[in-house]
């Protein structure tokens, strides 16, 4: 059970971010925190995977999908859930360790950490992009359909 404790911390940290980013409706705060916690849960569940990048990618896909679902249910922009939900996945640790290595003139681990951080950021971005692209494609087809029905 203890290894899932970070999910709770992620949930609470997301609650803090909801205040920082001025979300007012309690329902939206709750759902965006849930998005963040679920994202980290997915990351932990794929713990036996070798590649960090793949884990980040899969976790992001779930976060993005969840945001789109919540956005449809709550009739709010998906950005709200996405911005908060993605935060626990942001590789802040990697950035710090890379900088730390740089300051210590340890260029080998600077390169390693730096590339790892960049790759994780790329994985997160790719995950968001994949989901957004698909959702937009489906949504625009649906509005086209409605439009043609009206015109016809």
């Amino acid at each position, binding site marked *: 059970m203890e290894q899932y404790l*970070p999910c709770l*911390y*992620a949930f*609470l*940290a997301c*609650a*803090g*971010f*909801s*205040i*920082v*980013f*001025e*979300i*007012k*409706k309690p329902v*939206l705060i709750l759902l965006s925190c849930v998005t963040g916690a679920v994202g980290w849960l997915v990351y932990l569940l794929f713990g036996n995977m070798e590649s960090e990048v793949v884990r980040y990618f899969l976790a992001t896909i779930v976060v993005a999908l969840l945001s789109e679902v919540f956005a449809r249910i709550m*009739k*709010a*922009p998906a*950005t*709200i859930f*996405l*911005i*908060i939900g*993605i*935060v*626990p*996945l*942001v*590789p*802040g*640790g990697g*950035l*710090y*360790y890379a*900088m*730390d290595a*740089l*300051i210590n003139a340890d260029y080998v681990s600077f390169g390693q950490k730096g590339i790892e951080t960049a790759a994780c*950021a*790329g994985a*997160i*971005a*790719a995950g*968001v*992009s994949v989901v*957004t*692209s698909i959702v937009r494609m489906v949504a625009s087809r649906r509005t086209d359909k409605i439009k043609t029905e009206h015109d016809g």
Partner: protein
Amino acid sequence: MHSKKVEQCLNFCCEVSRQLIRNGAEIYRVEESANRMLAAYGYKEAEVFAVPSCVIMSIHYGERNYTKSVRIKSATNNLDKLDRLNALCRDVCRETPEIDVALSELKAIVGRPVYPVWLSYFGYGCVAAFFTLFWGGNALDAAIAFFCGMIVKAVVGHMVRLNANVFFVNVCASMLLVMVPVVLTYMGCTMIHTDQIIIGSIMLLVPGIAITNVMRDVIIGDFVTALSKLAEVLIVALAIAVGIAIPFGLARALLGGI
């Protein structure tokens, strides 16, 4: 007489776009919303061009062309206003109210209160504290990080008011927050986990959202927006790096290694 109506509509749509960007909307969403609103009011021949710092809108109506541009100097994330602006856009598209009515609604949204300052400080503190726990710190580290988070809020809040640039704000904020655990360590509190405290607090500054947005803009095909946001991301990352480096470097130079 009709030209006045067009101009009113143009002004309204420009103002909505400005507020959308200022409160953290994605750029393609801004263009989309503005286009839809203009179409809802019956201006089918309209072009909207938006980048993070500027929106240009043109309407061709009757014999004439109407154009307006607005400049956006700074953007923050206010998801409450963003949510309401979004709802306003939807309502406008569906019901096409009189511009005056829509404008007063817009003004009500812009004037909405933000969280009181103490709650904002508390929020920053919570983020830093819980991310410290999240990255493996203990309760004491979290308490120190809570304080670091409040420092970040104080620095960001005050320096933005002084119109400091993004780079300098981030250098100062990260420098001061790193100072706290470094000084504590030198004062003899060696049981604290400096790394975890710094990582937890730095989450408040890391441009994670911006970088995902950059990639998204690239994939959608909006390269102008992506490039200008990328520049910002790199500047912020560099600023944080400099901010971390200064206290460590000073400590090492003055007092010898940790």
